[in-house]
């Protein structure tokens, strides 16, 4: 199947305050038809929807627990995905095992879908490592902090996929797509625009998944663009589509189509998942300084989880017992995170010299030995060590 047109196909009537986009599940949980995309989720059973609901709830629980851990001083920082669960779970569940993901630092829901233990996400934010999962194990690359840089890595990786002959063979287990996540702010970066050009010119099997959460820290979308973001794709020569980013079913459908297009050798697609960052940019940010509380209240009515719950309840797809069991699972996951986080040891000082190069260079070995020797001088219990301790005890060290 292909997505030939740039922009959403004709859709069911939507609320007036929403832009034109692909939607399959309204905020009220009503399944609406979209002839262009219905077939892409025709195989989705109630059991699958319950699975998506579970993903959404657990992803949010990971997030709220991490925010709490930051508030308790266990994490230095956390970038919340609150409000973006459907965009991440919908797209994440569209992936096949061989597909490769290049995330930003906010893709905790995608990480969940790829089977990355959420505990592993915490190290970066606690300050004990810079990404502790094996990217090869789950085909989920490390988080990238520099805005937009990973879109080029994804495109290059997709070029490698092409050269491996893993595109357009018709073998569902072999044909591979790459997906790059980024936000609305990133679309202003040169790297993202260069990635669009590369992918287009080279017909690379990559999906550009933009979560337009309306805010780049304090700057609204109007500071990044004068046209809807998905329409940028047309200028680069590949399809763009806007999807209701709070609708997990629509995100699943749209991403499935784009990934398949890539795997079939038909090149890149840009998806703009229209959503809202319900929390702060990160735990250090205070959004009350730059946006209205009323906006948040408005978007709460479009909550990505509530509509799935309403859908399942209304259609009898899940009962009270199911929702209770997911809640219990979420609590257990939160407990796991708390324990895991607090058990994370600080790295040893000399470990900073590890992995600068594949083999340590002689000057670096000398510096490591220098630090080790300096540190061990404090273990002797000599005057030097006592002097420093008493200085700290006097309080002068904390001015």
């Amino acid at each position, binding site marked *: 199947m292909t997505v030939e047109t740039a922009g959403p196909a004709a859709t069911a009537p939507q609320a007036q305050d929403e832009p034109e986009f692909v939607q399959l599940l309204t905020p009220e949980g009503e399944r609406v038809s979209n002839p262009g995309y219905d077939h892409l989720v025709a195989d989705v059973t109630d059991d699958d929807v319950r699975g998506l609901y579970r993903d959404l709830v657990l992803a949010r629980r990971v997030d709220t627990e991490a925010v709490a851990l930051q508030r308790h001083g266990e994490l230095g920082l956390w970038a919340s995905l609150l409000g973006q669960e459907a965009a991440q779970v919908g797209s994440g569940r569209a992936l096949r095992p061989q597909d490769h993901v290049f995330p930003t630092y906010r893709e905790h829901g995608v990480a969940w879908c790829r089977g990355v233990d959420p505990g592993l996400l915490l190290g970066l934010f606690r300050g004990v490592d810079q990404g502790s999962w094996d990217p090869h194990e789950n085909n989920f690359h*490390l988080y990238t902090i520099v805005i937009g*840089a990973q879109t*080029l890595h994804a495109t290059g990786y997709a070029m490698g996929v092409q050269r491996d002959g893993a595109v357009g063979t018709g073998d569902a287990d072999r044909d591979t797509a790459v997906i790059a996540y980024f936000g609305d702010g990133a679309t202003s970066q040169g790297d993202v625009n260069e990635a669009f050009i590369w992918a287009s010119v080279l017909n690379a099997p990559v999906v550009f998944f933009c979560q337009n959460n309306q805010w780049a820290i304090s700057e609204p979308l109007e500071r990044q663009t004068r046209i809807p973001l998905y329409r940028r794709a047309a200028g680069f020569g590949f399809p763009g589509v806007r999807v209701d980013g709070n609708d997990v079913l629509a995100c699943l459908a749209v991403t499935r189509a784009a990934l398949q297009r890539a795997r079939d050798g038909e090149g890149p697609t840009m998806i703009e998942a229209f959503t809202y960052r319900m929390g702060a940019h990160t735990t250090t940010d205070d959004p009350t300084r730059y946006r209205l509380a009323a906006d948040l209240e408005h978007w709460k009515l479009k909550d990505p989880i509530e509509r799935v719950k309403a859908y399942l309840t209304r259609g009898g797809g899940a009962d009270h017992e199911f929702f209770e069991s997911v809640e219990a699972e979420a609590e257990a996951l939160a407990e796991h995170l708390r324990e895991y986080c607090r058990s994370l040891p600080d790295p040893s000082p000399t470990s900073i010299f590890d992995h600068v*190069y594949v083999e340590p260079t002689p000057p670096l070995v000398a510096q490591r030995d220098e630090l080790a020797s300096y540190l061990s001088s404090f273990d002797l219990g000599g005057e030097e060590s006592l002097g420093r301790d008493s200085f700290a005890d006097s309080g002068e060290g904390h001015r």
Partner: protein
Amino acid sequence: MTTMALGKAINAGLRKAMEDDPTVLVMGEDVGKLGGVFRVTDGLQKDFGEDRVIDTPLAESGIIGTAVGLALRGYRPVCEIQFDGFVFPGTNQIVSQVAKMHFRSGGRLRVPMVIRIPFGGGIGAVEHHSESPEAYFAHTPGLKVVAVSNPLDAYWMIQQAISLDDPVVFFEPKRRYWDKADVSEDGTPDLPLEAARMVVTGSHATVLAYGPMVKTCLAAASAAAQEGRSIEVIDLRSLSPLDLTSVFESVRKTGRCVVVHEAQRTLGIGAEVAARVTEECFYSLEAPVVRVTGFDTPYPPARVEEEYLPDLDRVLDGVDRALAY
């Protein structure tokens, strides 16, 4: 044994690497059909195809950033940055992504890629075409930085750089591309990639150089010899890591050290060498370490570049200053 120009030697080295390893790719602006503006990749696309020798869009960050992705997928990209002054749009990717990927992944990821940069002046070019940006990269942990000075090293060092699992920034002295020497394509290289080379032995002063300045310093050593001064010349070759073992031995013997580069003086390679030589050879030094370098100005217009660039006379002047103590 074949007589080869330096640029041709890199071409031959690239060809050998591509023959030996099907994952080696060449990518950059105009590297395909044209063979690069200096013809260093001449003929490679014809023989290895457009999938392995890639004419890229005109965007340096894209060249480096997609090379990272290719390396993560198991390829060994060799990127060409067309001129030294054009590397800066790609510097974000080099410094923040290429250099740190192995470290931040706890050793799980490797990005074996080579970034070739023709560098230095002396060819009468317009601005941004004659710069020496090596110190920026040598200052960045995670990158290896080398500079070649002659055809034999060029042939072997490009192959050594490609085979390394660390990323390498590979500086090529553009005004020496046409200098010829005998190159043996058989056997193995006589030095590891990261080793300095003793080029000429001497007893009165040690002169250190790399890239285009090695030839200048050799000429200076010949001139000095006619005046009865014996100059030892060492080609540093690797700027990160610096291999100073032979330098320390030499300075302990001569007591005098002159370091020469085209790049601006402040915080250049010469500053690091001076500090390290002072730390290691303090009691052997008869004079402060002398730097003979470009000046702390932007690279000047071509009609005054001969005054900016260290030449034979300025190297000899540096030696004189060291010997004056």
